[in-house]
């Protein structure tokens, strides 16, 4: 069924991620620490984007005199 396949595909991607970043060799709590750090950095980046990107886009459009 589609959900099972989706889950299998996601597990495979997570496994590849563990292998490529060498997290596979670390203990589970170390993996949790690294994953939380990574997710928090990514979340902060997304939040910053959400807050500031509209202002930046308006400033750029203003500069090129597309909108006043």
């Amino acid at each position, binding site marked *: 069924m589609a959900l099972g396949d989706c889950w*299998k*595909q996601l597990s*495979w991607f997570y*496994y*590849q991620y*563990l*292998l*490529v*970043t*060498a*997290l*596979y*060799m*670390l*203990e589970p709590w*170390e993996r949790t620490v*690294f994953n939380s750090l990574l997710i928090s950095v990514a979340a902060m980046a997304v939040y910053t984007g959400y807050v500031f990107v509209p202002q930046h886009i308006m400033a750029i459009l203003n500069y090129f005199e597309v909108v006043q």
Partner: protein
Amino acid sequence: CKNGPGTGVANSLPRHEPFEQAPMYVAVMTYLGYGLVTLFGYFRDFLRAVGLEKCHVAQERSEQKDFVPLYQDFENFYNRNLYMRVRDNWNRPICSLPGPVFDLMERISDDYNWTFRFTGRTIPNVINVGSYNYLGFAENNVDFLKTVAEKTQEYGVGVCSTRQEIANLSLHQELEQLVANFLGLESSMAFGMGFATNSMNIPALVGKGCLILSDELNHTSLILGARLSGATIRVFKHNNMHSLEKMLREAICSGQPRTHRPWKKILIMVEGIYSMEGSVVRLPEILALKKKYKAYLYLDEAHSIGAVGPTGRGVTELFNVNAADVDIMMGTFTKSFGACGGYIAGKKVLVDYIRRHSHSAIYATAMSPPVTEQVIRAMKCIMGQDGGDEGIRRVRQLAENTRYFRARLKEMGFIIYGNDDSPVVPILLYMPAKVVAFAREMLRRKIGVVVVGFPATPITEARARFCLSAAHTRPMLDQVRLLRPLRLHNCGCFLSMPITISQR
């Protein structure tokens, strides 16, 4: 057409020996992976120093804190933080003979590989692609081992002395005569340990005032022997004839450092097959260089004797050169003959000199009689002197297995180093976690491989090494290659390997 007669060098078939580079993203990922584990290693060391975590490794005592630190160098750091985490893939205890299939003892660890305990079960019938069993002589077939049993009954097992004192058995002389006949040389001498053959005999051959030109990827025994001898050592790039020639010319022109006197001897040390790459030495070109510049050649055929060549005589037969052109032929009995020990063969003058001047000949215990008889019977089998064609069948089977396995692996798109004729097949895995996952998953699927990482290979070129054997059957090889973490297109596969450039 006035091209004239071709030389032997030009006529030999160009052997296809690629050393492919990995794609850039693979190298970057490998460094990132190592960087991450190193950072966590520093973090764990900090926790151990502060006392939040129990330290399982050796530590200095508090009274020694003012002295030079013992455990802070990179090697110890690597050992504590990278090797210890994953060391269940090495030193696995075996409880059967290392034939084409073997049994492993099952062991598990409760504290992330700091300690192990045996569960009491064995893992039976694991396919063995890690042992150096090229011709399949590591066997316990009663018919083949009859002469070994007879000699053990006649001579016992211990010799209790050295060759020079009172343990020069007639069996040893028979072995040496047989080895000399096998290689087509005048005379040979056999030693009890392969590593000691190199490290103890090179000091007898060269000394201060001599020059050793050794290949970049030579084995530790050659390097140790060269260092012990006290000669000047210069290293040339692996299998690179331009580098070697440049060094020879420079050495002959400028002589010894500081005094500029001519070198007493120049010795070129190479191996027949390099065990970590599977590449074969360029013998005809080295012989041409040696003759031109009047140097001597030391050829270490540890992996290639018995395993290459149409009748198993090694790289000299593979390239169709005269074995007497190589000044010192060395080899071991460990790999293709299923025994232990090594030999040095060459002119009678050379071997007689070694008999009197080598540390191993004078001080080391002689070879044990059952081991000697095992080598004798294996060699007679290969030469066909025992009346059958079992030996030649094994040599042909090994060549066929090698060609088949390498061709199929290349088809599947892996990066493989080495010559097409060499039975040592290293598959590059690059990333440290992939190496570990590969070994564990292969064991789960009942295939025992040897994976090698940093100290034995460059840090970015971790690999898995397959050693093929004449005792492997076609179904076994298929099981190994199909059950592997393979098939980049199939999402069921779990270790996507970097594919070769040719397949893009």
